[in-house]
């Protein structure tokens, strides 16, 4: 690097937008707002997620339906548009429980599992990634080995075995998904930390006498923040789908707790005759995951423009 670096300052900071004179005077926060509010995917995704979260949180409190009350005599009623009545707008399931109420509680389950599983994965992945990236050497090799094992592991298989072992509950599902899904966090933080570790401001922090811990907390981690948020969102989408898949296979959330994956699997028995039982939770799942993914993609574009690839 003996060359005179003759690229323009503006061009180095990142692609595109900050070139504008007016933008250069903005603080990073203002810049972020600018970019965020002009990103359609982010806006749509965030609105979808907010809407679903509101429905999940407020819906069951407001609506006069009970997700758990069985009414065997009134089972498998169709939704209103297929000839049902307003007592159960989206019909009832195999045990006569209100499908709308179950869908709403299902949203809670998906969101809860998604959020906490991603959090668990985040803690594991980031911790390993930061250690591997910062210390390198043997630690890095050990973490690499762990990563290879984790990637080579057929996850569903182990998830099934674990769920049989511990018994299915929402905590176990969160634990299993979290413990099995941290590779993305690890890979990204590891390489980011490796890059940051070489930057001069880290060397500078060392030469002013900062302790390793202080460098960790004050110099390295804050600079991983945006990447972590982005991955977190993306992994949350993945975790939601994983939960649904596990529940679909019967090793996730247990009835009577409604999970969308479980509802699909229950509805599947009669998918040719009561298709709404399968289709509605599928659509709900699709909307939520798409919302979360759009949000994740959007945040990546906005927070780490250079990370778009």
């Amino acid at each position, binding site marked *: 690097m003996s060359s005179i670096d003759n690229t323009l300052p503006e061009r180095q900071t990142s692609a595109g937008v900050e070139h504008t004179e007016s933008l250069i005077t903005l603080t990073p926060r203002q810049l972020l707002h600018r970019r965020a509010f002009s990103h359609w995917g982010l806006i749509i995704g965030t609105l979808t997620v907010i809407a679903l979260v509101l429905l999940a949180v407020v819906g069951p409190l407001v609506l006069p339906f009970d997700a758990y009350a069985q009414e065997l005599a009134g089972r498998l009623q169709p939704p209103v548009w297929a000839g049902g009545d307003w007592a159960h707008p989206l019909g009832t399931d195999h045990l006569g429980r209100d499908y709308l109420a179950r869908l709403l509680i299902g949203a809670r389950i998906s969101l809860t599992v998604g959020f906490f599983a991603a959090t668990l994965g985040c803690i594991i992945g980031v911790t390993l990634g930061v250690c591997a990236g910062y210390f390198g050497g043997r630690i890095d090799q050990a973490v690499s080995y762990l990563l290879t*094992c984790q990637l*080579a592991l057929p996850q569903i298989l182990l998830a099934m*075995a674990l769920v049989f072992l511990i018994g299915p509950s929402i905590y176990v599902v969160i634990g299993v998904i979290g413990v099995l899904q941290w590779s993305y966090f690890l890979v990204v933080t590891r390489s980011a930390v490796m890059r940051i570790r070489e930057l001069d401001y880290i060397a500078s922090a060392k030469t002013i006498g900062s302790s390793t811990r202080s460098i960790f907390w004050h110099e390295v981690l804050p600079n991983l923040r945006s990447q972590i948020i982005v991955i977190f969102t993306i992994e949350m989408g993945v975790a939601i789908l994983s939960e649904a898949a596990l529940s679909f296979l019967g090793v996730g959330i247990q009835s009577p707790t409604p999970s969308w994956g479980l509802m699909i699997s229950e509805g599947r028995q009669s998918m040719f005759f009561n298709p709404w039982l399968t289709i509605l939770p599928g659509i709900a799942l699709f909307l939520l*995951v798409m919302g979360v993914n759009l949000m994740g993609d959007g945040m990546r574009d906005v927070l780490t423009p250079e990370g778009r690839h």
Partner: protein
Amino acid sequence: MLRFAIRRLLLALAVGFTVSLAAFLALQLATDPAQAIAGEDAEPAVVEQIRIEYGLDRPLVTQYVDWIGNVVQGNFGESFYWHQSVADLILQAAPTTLKLATFSILVTILVAIPLGALAAMRPNSWVDRLALSVSVSAQAIPNFWLGLVVIVIFSVHLGWFPVAGDRTLAHFVLPAFVLGMTSVPAVMRLTRAGLLEAFEADYIRTARAKGFRGYPLLKKQALRNAMLPVISVLAVQLGNKLGGAIITEAVFSMRGLGRLAVDSIQGGDIPTVQMLVFVFAMTFVLLTFIADLINAWIDPRLRLR
């Protein structure tokens, strides 16, 4: 090179044994294989007899160490549940999964790479937007649900494809599509990003200065560079498909390795699960190795290793 290959093989073995140990322990703790073999209405004495017959009463360490010893000698053991050698079981189920994985990776490649390339050629055009929508949707659709939906539409309503099973090639069309779609987003995005990055690269500017434009520029200059990460990801995806065909096989009632794995887990058939996990892990590591070899063939800089 040879040394490198041997190292990779050793790594694969190590990973395989580590991972299968996890499976072994999890299953040992979760289920009672003897009960599983005996079935729903079995009497306890039968179960006890089975336990002794299969050596399930020995300490776990002994069981696992014996297993490793056997595998190293090329003896993959006997399935409790299927009364067959595990090797035979895997060989019988493998073709279905291999076919499924191959076809689905073909679907992925045929959809994702052209779409990604078109998107990269015209960023922000309608093609790009279409590609992005496809990828966002494919990422959000639960694939087991997609499987159900295509069965209803294409098998039952339209009657174009058989419903379930794996007897003929026609049986593979829908599952391969469904499974293939799961990897489309990742591969498409990488192709697009890789090409965009390549298009930004200095050597592309050089090529343009030499007179390259349009398709030849893509094909003769950018593609090869852009394919590096795509190939690595395809290897990972193929590995996941071999191990992760579970859901697809369940939805389409195919009897491949995924199904074998699920049945074996539910049946507590530890030797089979253990061996499957071992094989999956080995395959995965070896696939990444092959991807590295291909990448080294594509990119001479990687040959230095």
